[in-house]
């Protein structure tokens, strides 16, 4: 994973709460073993009639939002299904950061492992930015993970309190498996002890 420090670009407002991962990438784009999915990003809303015809009334198809790099969304974004495709779909479409007041838990963890920056801001600030994006033509924003700053469409600067693990994953692009491999002696020691403490966990009637 490449380190992530900052992104600047058009932001698209998705003024809906509880956007679930079924909505972010509908099931028909899940029948794959590839980590892509950009084509299915909000597929049921972006296209008409199950096909390739763009739905003109969906905000992502408005010319000023087509090149969006940042999503600004209502609370509990990415709730529901654990499908990591929901994260890959953002990246495949070109989205690098999402701003919301809260995120679905599995989506949040999946994002950190793929370099999609998730920024939690107070609901009042998110809705202020949302209103600005909906009301005016200027939609350029910046999400700076290094400095923990978001620049609104009016260039107002917000300090962002990021989850420390999420931030460090983004900045270092570290491979978590590699980090865990370094702890193998501790894991082995735990397993040895647990086999004695809870033998029933480690045996089964058929093995």
């Amino acid at each position: 994973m490449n380190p992530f420090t900052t992104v600047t670009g058009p932001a698209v407002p998705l003024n809906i709460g509880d956007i679930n991962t079924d909505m972010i990438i509908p099931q028909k784009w899940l029948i794959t073993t590839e980590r892509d999915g950009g084509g299915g990003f909000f597929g049921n809303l972006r296209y008409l009639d199950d096909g390739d015809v763009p739905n003109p009334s969906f905000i992502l198809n408005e010319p000023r939002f087509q090149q969006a790099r940042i999503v600004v969304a209502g609370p509990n974004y990415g709730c529901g299904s654990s499908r990591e495709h929901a994260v890959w779909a953002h990246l495949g479409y070109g989205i690098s950061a999402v701003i919301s007041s809260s995120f679905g838990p599995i989506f949040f963890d999946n994002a950190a492992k793929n370099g999609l920056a998730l920024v939690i801001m107070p609901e009042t600030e998110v809705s202020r930015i949302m209103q600005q994006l909906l009301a005016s033509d200027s939609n350029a924003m910046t999400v700076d993970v290094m400095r923990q700053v978001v620049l609104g469409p009016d260039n107002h600067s917000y300090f962002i309190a990021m989850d420390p693990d999420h931030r460090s994953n983004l900045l270092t692009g570290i491979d978590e498996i590699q980090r865990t491999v370094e702890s193998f002696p501790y894991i082995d020691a735990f397993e040895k002890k647990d086999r004695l403490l809870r033998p029933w966990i480690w045996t089964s009637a058929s093995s």
Partner: protein
Amino acid sequence: MIAALRKNAWEAGIRIFDLNDDRQGIVHVTAAEQGFVMPGMTVACGDSHTCTLGALGAWAFGVGTSEIEHILATQTVLMRKPHSSRLTVTGRRARGVTAKDLALGIIGRIGVNAAQGGVLEYAGPAITDLSMEERFTVCNMGIEAGARSALIATDQTTYQYVAARPECPRDLDEAVAAWERLRTDEGAAFDREFHVNCEQIAPQITWGTNPGQTVDIDSAVPLLDDTMPANQREAAVRALQYMDLGPGQQLIGLPIQKVFIGSCTNSRISDLEAAAEVVRGRTVARGVRALVVPGSSSIKRVAEERGIHKVFLEAGFEWRESGCSMCIGMNSDRVAAGERCVSTSNRNFEGRQGNGARTHLASPATAAASAIAGSIADPREVGGL
């Protein structure tokens, strides 16, 4: 995908219950049924409804593809201590109120993000009273209340269930002694506490596009006035437009085209029996396609031994091989755009059962009653309960 799964499992020496295996089924149903999950275990699986297994007093949570890779490579996953919530359910369930109604009624009251991504313990006398299969239904819906994992403390109900599983060790005395200690301490502090009296919950039906948008089946779609918090109103407007419903509209009598009885929420033998009780001697209404999909091949076999499949087949239901089927619309079991489906699954999200599909979540009894009526129906009125 299936070919890749077979190949990968074979290469890594991982047991697989393939399509032709008589234990094959939905993972959250099979894992418990076969005894792969015991109290006190940490259980991760690549599906958000893994929280179902917390009903066994295990810490069970859904993970994404990268976390599965991490687990397969290291036997561990990196995680901070999660946020904790407890929901205490008091009172006695009224006649005709199932575990599914309880689960939906709870989410309707506490909201779809109540547990804020953490662990949610279901506690209180109304939870202790539940059978093991009912507990699975309640915990299954935990993720719909924002809980990455749901939990119910172990007791005799748990131990008896576990002891009867084929994969569990035979001698469990020492284990049960340890499991007895797996409970919340008196006076323990939670990040959030909720209280629900289940006497106020009637059979539920959802009217919207998230599981919290639910009402008592004999009442109407809520009004979009000051009685509804402003932040819920916008979502309700959008949901009602998608569902082609209006504020204040009665739900009973609304014509339906599909009925789905199945999914990791409601596909166990007691679910099928409850639906069959309603169906017995009746027929599916003209114009309704109704599916019954057992959660595992084992459940299907038991149902057939008991003759339950005949009740459904004689009534005009389809009796299918086990799987996720119309819960997720990934195969050809879909609800067409604009069609209405009463479904015992867990998500009524936009497009979940097919692009443009309109899902009403309910219990197996309500789904069965609705299939007979050809419209949303109150199972207490149809009889059999």
